[in-house]
């Protein structure tokens, strides 16, 4: 396992060259190829959602907000939210990295249900196309939250088409979650007991529990909205004796745990990256594993904190507020354990580690501001302002997307067999970090000062911060475009990575890069603890060789 690039070659038989042609990709049941199919579509939707964001930020350069009409602006933030939440954030890490890695991490040949895996991709694409159609046909203006009775009675956009698209895509999530849970239970290699599993697997298990138990409820919520629109019945229409708040309960019962769907996989990625680049086993493994479940379970009990000002019962609001404080505890446990892992570790700052560290810092800010929002009195002041927007973008973009980017960089050598340009990647990470903070930190201030969300115009005193935010967004965009460019470049021209370039522990690093179609030549038998650097003299030797060469492996040629 030499770090010299000249002696490495791509494995002759790997999952990428096992069959060419469109059919071999569109009819594949190989979890690795399906992961790449997801990667392509997820990336597409990321840029679609980003496009809407660009238009929003351009409109917000001026207080009058006349770049687009108010109507159009409503459609823009709706479609930005729908695309980003349902078609990018929720699938991204599980469907791309989870699909690719989970069988490998547990020593299996594939997921439990490979054909269902392929079906889940087709369902995702079908739902995406439906929603894309609704957007191209003029869009929806209800906000991604589809609050009634606006969405069910008064809105004149393509609500039913968008709702149908999301409904369909929900089944993709359910199938993925089902596949992961069953796989992790029944497909583990001999010796891969529960507490030898990488934390990436634990967090995806917890995420899958949310997929299974939460998604069906939003399916019903959306179906009822569609029924109301089509048949003019009044579940959520006060004029017919219905209750709009019932929709909010049904909607947020899923959509709050959904944010844990978005963050748990990213936390799993960070839990993989930090030990590798601190050369030290993860501190408090059992606590981090338990915390993943704590987040998943308690996360189902807090949804009412989205409805504090919606005429929810004050007593109910108090209990939701208390539970919302409670759910921060397992997240904090994870942060402390990552920090403890770094302490007295041998830390190196390659790109995945930069993203992981960025995650930790930005997630802490986003998470703490979540506590501000969980406080009833504070929430009354900042609800529906840019404070909320800043809070969730810190978690979703500063957290989840950075986790996704970190994961893509970390496992890119395994997926493609190639290394990207480390210097360019470091630069892009820095650009992204700066751009992100410039975009979203001003929004905390704006929200606290009272700028409402979902308004196309604003009072003139807010302009400076808005211009800063838009400037940040353009820098952020560059930070996302650069990786696209160098990843694609690396597929052809990048130095060959070898099986374990970092090096890292974990079963996925013990097979070739790219892996063979069946993942392992021989089914591994696991006898070691996770993240056990000290027990792996071969890895320590590799690290020593890299240090002697005075150049991290990813510099390549």
């Amino acid at each position, binding site marked *: 396992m030499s770090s010299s690039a000249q002696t490495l070659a791509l494995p002759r038989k790997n999952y990428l060259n096992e069959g060419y042609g469109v059919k071999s990709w569109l009819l594949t049941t190989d979890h690795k190829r399906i992961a790449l199919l997801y990667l392509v579509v997820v990336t597409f939707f990321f840029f679609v959602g980003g496009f809407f964001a660009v238009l929003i930020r351009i409109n917000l350069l001026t207080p009058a907000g006349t770049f687009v009409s108010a109507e159009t602006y409503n459609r823009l933030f709706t479609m930005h939210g729908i695309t980003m939440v349902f078609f990018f954030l929720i699938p991204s890490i599980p469907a791309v990295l989870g699909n690719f890695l989970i069988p490998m991490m547990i020593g299996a040949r594939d*997921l439990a249900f490979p054909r269902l895996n392929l079906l889940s991709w087709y369902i995702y694409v079908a739902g995406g196309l439906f929603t894309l159609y609704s957007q191209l046909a003029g869009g929806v203006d209800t906000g991604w939250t589809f609050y009634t009775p606006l969405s069910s009675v008064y809105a004149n956009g393509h609500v039913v088409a968008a709702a149908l698209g999301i409904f369909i895509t929900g089944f993709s999530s359910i199938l993925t979650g089902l596949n992961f849970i069953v796989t992790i239970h*029944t*497909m583990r290699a001999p010796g891969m007991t529960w507490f030898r599993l990488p934390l990436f697997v634990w967090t995806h298990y917890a995420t899958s529990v949310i997929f299974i138990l939460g*998604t069906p409820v939003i399916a019903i919520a959306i179906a009822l909205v569609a029924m109301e629109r089509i048949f003019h*019945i009044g579940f959520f229409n006060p004029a*017919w004796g219905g*209750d709009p708040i*019932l929709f909010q309960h049904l909607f947020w019962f899923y959509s709050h745990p959904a944010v844990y769907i978005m963050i748990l996989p990213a936390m799993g990625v960070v839990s993989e990256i930090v030990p590798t680049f601190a050369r030290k086993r993860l501190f408090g493994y059992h606590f981090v594993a338990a915390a993943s479940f704590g987040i998943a379970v308690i996360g189902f009990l807090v949804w009412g904190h989205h409805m504090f000002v919606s005429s929810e019962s004050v007593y109910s609001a108090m209990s939701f507020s208390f539970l919302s404080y409670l759910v921060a505890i397992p997240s904090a446990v994870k942060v402390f354990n990552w920090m403890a892992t770094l302490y007295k570790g041998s830390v190196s700052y390659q790109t995945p580690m930069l993203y992981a560290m960025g995650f930790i810092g930005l997630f802490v800010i986003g998470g703490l501001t979540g506590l501000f929002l969980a406080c009833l009195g504070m929430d009354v002041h900042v609800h529906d302002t840019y404070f909320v927007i800043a809070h969730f973008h810190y978690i979703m973009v500063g957290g989840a997307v950075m986790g996704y980017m970190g994961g893509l960089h970390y496992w890119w050598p395994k997926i493609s067999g190639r290394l990207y340009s480390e210097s360019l990647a470091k630069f892009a990470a820095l650009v992204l970090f700066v751009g992100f903070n410039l975009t979203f930190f001003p929004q905390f201030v704006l929200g606290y000062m009272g700028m409402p969300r979902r308004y196309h115009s604003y009072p003139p005193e807010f302009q400076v911060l808005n211009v800063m935010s838009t400037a940040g967004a353009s820098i952020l965009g560059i930070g996302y475009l650069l990786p696209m460019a160098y990843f694609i470049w690396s597929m052809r021209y990048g130095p060959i990575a070898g099986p374990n370039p970092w090096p890292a522990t974990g079963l996925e690093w013990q097979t070739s890069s790219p892996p063979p179609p069946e993942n392992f030549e021989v089914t591994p038998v696991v006898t070691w603890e996770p993240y056990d650097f000290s027990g792996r003299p071969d890895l320590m030797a590799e690290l020593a060789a890299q240090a002697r060469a005075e150049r991290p492996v990813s510099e390549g040629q």
Partner: protein
Amino acid sequence: MSESESILRGHFRDLPQQRATATLGMWIFMATEIMFFGGLFLTYTVNRAAYPGIFAEASHHLNVVLGTVNTAVLICSSMTMAMAVYCSHKGRQKALSIYLILTMILGLGFLGIKAAEWTEHFQHHLVPGFNFQFSPAAAAGPAQLYFSLYFAMTGMHALHMIIGLGILTFLLIESFRARYTPEYNTPVELSGIYWHFVDIIWIYLFPLLYLIDIHK
């Protein structure tokens, strides 16, 4: 044994792992179904708590006799399905096919009675969105809520029955080919779980929709 080889799929180690996987998969799917119908049951609970009197009055337009008969029909179909699964474990091919056919007949019977009920409701203008009429007019809004829930819940249930009938048809055809043996009967077992679940949903729908204050 070549029979086992053709049953075992490539990514599994052995048949027990394959069977454990399929079984767990079906039960996880059942959990999603609990939450799916759960959303409808929640909507029902909220609205019935808000309008107990009107819900009762609206429910009196349902045919309790047909509802009770339908409940018995489904319970019989669960019995025949359980016997079908039993026969597949014992390798009794002909009995298996017969029990599957009986289950399907009972399922079709249920759907037939449901269709008759729905036709009657339609003729009495009790279908929301299709010239709904209810007296007194002041109660029309909540009554429409009741009937919307009635049609949504029994409709969703009926859809699951139809899918179940499709699955049973597939099983029946395979049973004619003597496909299910004591070594390989997982599809029958898992389809049984699905069928019984649909029965359980109806066990709750019946008292909640049909038996509201029928003593009045």
